[in-house]
């Protein structure tokens, strides 16, 4: 009987058989119920079969997805996968640019200067809401989470990073590549030069060895080979290049132009010369030009710090560290410098 039901439901009965069976069904309520039940069973099995087929097809398509199809955004708990970062970076850079273009009135009119901060969760308040909010109050509403780099300038627990990065921060934490996370607070900012000094505000803090790099208090030359360490992604990244110009963005005499591959997240990181001296702090890159970046000259930074009001720093900062990296192989220099470069997370 089931065979007949199945054939009927599949449409395998000829005209006479079919009409006969249908009469039978009409007259027999129990048969009708059974037919309905099998209809459902076969229907569900068919759907399952179709889905298996579809899934196979989809899995095939999935393997052919270009990497760019998957736009990776950072989760609110800051779990960033290293891959697809270039895409996230360019998306973020464009978003940051549009926000800044919208409001930076004091800044250069057509600012093409991209500040290299990373917007984590930039879409947390949806773009739509942001624009509305902006139109209403003419204020910058900045997404609440960023990540970038910082480095130690004094073993008493002082770090330097970008000002634009932390200026809206409610709280800041820093993390180096050994995974230790510490709280930090801003103690000094220079908005013209765009840097801030942070002090580690954590009783768990203990300096991990002596800072191995020195500060070069004189101008560096174009052609000088330079490098940086930073966090354009969650793991520390090394980039190298050369000093390409004595002036920064639009002739800014407080910065250098460097040819170095930079990404959002590199902001605030150290610029080293070949011998491991700090000659600057990474600040930004030129829109649309890969490999054109800018770094604030360290001598300007140090001078600004020295001219800060007396009560700014609890400790006396001198920048006379001895450079222990000179003459060492690059990999060795990096090993020694790495613990003093930090990932900054702003909330």
């Amino acid at each position, binding site marked *: 009987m089931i065979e007949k039901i199945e054939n009927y439901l599949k449409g395998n009965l000829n005209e006479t058989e079919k009409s006969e069976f249908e009469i039978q069904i009409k007259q027999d309520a129990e048969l009708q119920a059974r037919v309905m039940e099998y209809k459902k069973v076969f229907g569900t099995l068919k759907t399952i079969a179709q889905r298996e087929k579809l899934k196979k097809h989809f899995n095939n398509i999935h393997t052919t997805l270009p990497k760019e199809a*998957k736009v990776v955004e950072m989760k609110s708990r800051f779990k960033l996968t290293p891959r697809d970062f270039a895409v996230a970076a360019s998306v973020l850079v464009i978003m940051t640019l549009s926000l800044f273009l919208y409001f930076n009135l004091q800044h250069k009119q057509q600012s093409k200067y991209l500040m290299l901060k990373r917007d984590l969760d930039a879409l947390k308040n949806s773009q739509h809401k942001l624009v509305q909010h902006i139109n209403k109050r003419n204020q910058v509403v900045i997404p609440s989470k960023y990540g970038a780099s910082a480095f130690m300038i004094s073993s008493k627990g002082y770090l330097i990073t970008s000002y634009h990065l932390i200026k809206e921060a409610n709280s800041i934490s820093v993390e180096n590549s050994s995974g230790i996370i510490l709280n930090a607070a801003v103690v000094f900012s220079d908005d013209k030069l765009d840097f801030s000094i942070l002090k580690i505000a954590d009783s768990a803090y203990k300096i991990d060895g002596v800072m191995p790099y020195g500060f070069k208090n004189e101008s560096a030359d174009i052609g000088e080979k330079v490098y940086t360490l930073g966090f354009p992604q969650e793991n520390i990244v090394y980039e190298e290049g050369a000093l390409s110009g004595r002036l920064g963005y639009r002739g800014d005499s407080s910065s250098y132009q460097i040819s170095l591959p930079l990404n959002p997240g590199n902001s605030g990181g150290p610029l080293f010369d070949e011998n491991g001296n700090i000659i600057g702090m990474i600040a930004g890159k030129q829109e649309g030009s890969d490999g054109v970046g800018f770094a604030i000259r360290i001598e300007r930074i140090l001078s600004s710090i020295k001219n800060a009001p007396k009560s700014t720093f609890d400790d006396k900062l001198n920048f006379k560290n001895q450079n222990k990296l000179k003459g060492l192989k690059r990999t060795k220099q990096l090993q020694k410098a790495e613990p003093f470069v930090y990932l900054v997370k702003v909330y």
Partner: protein
Amino acid sequence: MEYSDSEVIRLIRINDQSALSFLYKKHYGMVNHFILNNNGSDDDAKDIFQEGMIVFYEKLQMPEFELSCQIKTFLYAICRRMWLKKLIHRSKFIGKINDNEEIAEIADEEISQIDKKENDITSMNLALNKLGEPCTTIITDYYIQNLSMENICEKFGYTNADNAKNQKYKCLTRLKKIFFAGNKN
């Protein structure tokens, strides 16, 4: 090759494979982005997106179905709801969804249809498992993998096709019983 929404719908209805492919590649990123921003992984995104695409495909199989919004909006709404359900099921819903697209309202009848179908499928899979061997394999091979009776004959060593067929019907009777017993909920 760029297709408009109505073109894609027309092509999918006539079973054009490239249209499905196009749709998949076009919208995967949006859902992936959403899932990752809401406590999910890449694997979660793949699963949810594929399930959403399946719902869309199945809807299209009904000729009376008419989409009143963009395909993108529909997919997003479906996937969002599925993900929310999953998060709640995993006890991982933190009370807030981060949206990156506008949310379309799905009609209540649509939702109940979708849920009902999902329930049926879950019940069926459970029932299939409860069948035990050889029924689970016979039914799965014949109805889901669409293997032929001869194939199944060979596999189980039945002496002839009629034998296999009878076995199949015995299994079906049991399956129906278990399915409806379980589906009462």
